[in-house]
């Protein structure tokens, strides 16, 4: 208290001093003579430094997050393949025994293996999907029957991880890779019968029990279908609500009540909306579980208040003088809104809508509640088909301890983040390009 008082008097004294001799700074040196000036400069410097440190910390967090995801996930974009000498025996093809064909070619590559366990290890070098790949080859070129060919077959997930990341110790300890498998892979690699290829399967497939076959196509399509439903429902509803509240409704306790509720709704935890969707859409309306239709409708509830608030802000940013100008020309209230206010607010509205789409795109919890957490191997064809979304796919894979799924998880996050960045860039572009400055 006394200190404060002292300071006050000192400041007051400075003031008096300044008044007495309106002093002109002789020099603009960074180290002024007067203590209060030095103090003020120090304060400025301190503030700048604190801000810089804050930004630095935030940036470090972001960088370590991105680095972590990238270093875990980049390898998922490549696929390990093994070259096998395959003999397409007509007899076996007739019997649909493609598995045997694969096994024969593996045995041909590494002859003299008798032990059952050794054999099992050998056969599990390649993906369990390998027979299907052979079948596809034969269906495409039937002339290959009874011929011999060198075919690149995807390796199994464990082998792939081992080959890509050379995690010898970890892999051996986890019992996923036997010593003889290590020897075979080393041999294959030496003879250049193993290679890394861009992993198209990751973008062409849905979910799979086999990590090397699991892809993001089904969940990405599910995401887009869900978002489509969500936007179709929330955009007209939200914008119409905002226009009504902002431009037409007379202020009354009722509109105040609605406004308060909408603002509160924006703060409701998202899982509550999932429960709401479960009890209304599924249990009362009987809409199909796990479908993108219901997912979109739930997310629409979630972003509706956000769209209403963004639209109202955008409408409020249009100066009243423009409304008066139009009204004084004889435009009806509806014409004022649809010829002017709404048009000029549209860039702001679009920015808000796109950002809320980004939010819906990354939403997981409410979708779990309505069963979109199912195992989806096929791309959903209609809006009532069972579907899942990218973030839910991330959640599903993250729960799988298999090493192959760890890299898939990180890769799926990278795909998700890419979409997020694209959406945000679109919002920034629209704001820069179309925003009207008043």
């Amino acid at each position, binding site marked *: 208290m006394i200190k404060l008082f002292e300071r006050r008097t000192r400041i007051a004294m400075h003031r008096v001093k300044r008044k007495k001799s309106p002093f002109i700074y002789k020099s603009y040196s960074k180290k002024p003579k007067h203590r209060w000036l030095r103090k003020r400069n120090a304060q400025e410097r301190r503030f700048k430094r604190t801000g810089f440190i804050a930004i630095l910390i935030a940036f470090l967090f972001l960088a370590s997050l991105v680095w972590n995801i990238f270093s875990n996930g980049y390898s998922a974009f490549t696929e390990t393949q093994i070259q096998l000498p395959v003999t397409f025996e007509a007899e076996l093809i007739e019997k649909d025994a493609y598995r045997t064909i694969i096994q024969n070619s593996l045995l041909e590559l590494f002859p003299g293996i008798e032990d059952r366990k050794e054999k099992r290890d050998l056969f599990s070098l390649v993906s369990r999907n390998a027979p299907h790949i052979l079948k596809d080859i034969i269906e495409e070129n039937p002339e290959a029957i009874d011929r011999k060919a060198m075919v690149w077959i995807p390796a199994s997930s464990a082998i792939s991880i081992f080959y890509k990341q050379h995690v010898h110790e970890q892999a051996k300890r986890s019992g996923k890779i036997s010593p003889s498998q290590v020897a075979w892979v080393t041999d294959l690699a030496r003879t250049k019968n193993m290679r890394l290829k861009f992993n198209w399967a990751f973008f062409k497939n849905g979910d799979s029990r086999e990590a090397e076959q699991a892809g993001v196509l089904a969940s990405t399509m599910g995401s887009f279908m869900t978002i489509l439903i969500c936007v179709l429902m929330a955009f007209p509803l939200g914008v119409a609500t905002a226009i009504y509240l902002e431009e037409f409704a007379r*202020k009354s306790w009722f509109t105040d009540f609605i406004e308060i509720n909408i603002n509160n709704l924006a703060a409701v935890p998202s899982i509550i909306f999932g429960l709401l969707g479960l009890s209304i859409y599924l249990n009362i309306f009987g809409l199909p579980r796990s479908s993108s239709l219901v997912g979109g409708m739930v997310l629409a509830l979630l972003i509706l208040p956000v769209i209403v608030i963004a639209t109202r802000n955008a409408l409020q940013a249009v*100066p009243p*003088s*423009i*409304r*008066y*100008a*139009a*009204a*004084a*020309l*004889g*435009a*009806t209230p509806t*014409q004022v809104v649809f*010829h*002017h206010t709404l048009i*000029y607010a549209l860039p702001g509205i679009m920015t808000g809508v796109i950002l809320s789409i980004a939010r819906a795109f990354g939403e997981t919890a409410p979708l779990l509640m309505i069963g979109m957490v199912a195992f989806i191997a096929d791309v959903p064809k209609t809006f009532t088909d069972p579907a899942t979304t990218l973030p839910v796919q991330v959640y599903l894979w993250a729960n799988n301890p298999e090493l192959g799924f760890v890299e898939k998880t990180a890769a799926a996050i990278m795909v998700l983040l890419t979409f997020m960045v694209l959406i945000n860039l679109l919002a920034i572009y629209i704001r820069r390009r179309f925003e*009207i400055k008043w």
Partner: protein
Amino acid sequence: MVKNMNAEKKKTEDIAECGPENIRMKTQNLSVFYNNDQALHDINLDIACNKVTALIGPSGCGKSTFMRCLNRMNDYVENCRVTGKVRLDGFNIYKDNVDTILLRQKVGMVFQKPNPFPKSIYENVAYGPKIHHLIDNKDELDALVEKTLRRVGLWDEVADRLAAPGTSLSGGQQQRLCIARAIATKPEVVLMDEPCSALDPIATARIEELIAELEKKFTIVIITHSMQQAERVSHHTAFFHMGHIIEAGDTQKIFNDPEHQKTKDYIGGKFG
């Protein structure tokens, strides 16, 4: 009333004819209340046809409120109540069944701060005629836009950039664009609420020239805080003070030989 105005729309192709008394608008016992505060007290004022009427008075005396009664823009002000009559060509525009849309086509308005739409210059001028369906033909609309822009002396300046946004013009050009926008609907009366207060002296001079030009075809009501401007541009002047008209009449008479002491003081710059 609505029918009459529609019928008249056809007749008023370019110049609205003045009635026998040469009075375009007339207010009778016009009072305006905001909430329960009375802003205007029993205003009776005649606005002469195709002449310029200036409204002067200190800030807050009710000039803008009065002007907004003439095209019923007060309808947009919350808690604003109007009593009394305002007649346009003899019709009381405050009757219940009046179509304010048609009214505002007849009585245009120019605001204090230039407020062009952030649309193209062309659209700014063409908007009024379009929504009133005065013209449905593209060529005629082009012709009307050109004629209107020529009338406000803007054509030579903007002819090569009609597609540029109206907001990209300078302040003075914007205000002339707003005047063009207002007269494009072929109104009978043009209301101007301090149209020059946001402009520099040169732009102000141009607007004054424009008013002198327009007065031949339009009845103009202008609010101004510049005594010189009122004296230069107007034929009639009304002096408002605290919601009352203290004195109204011929501009020369008011400026040279005012009847009331308050008028004399205000014009002489003693208050305001």
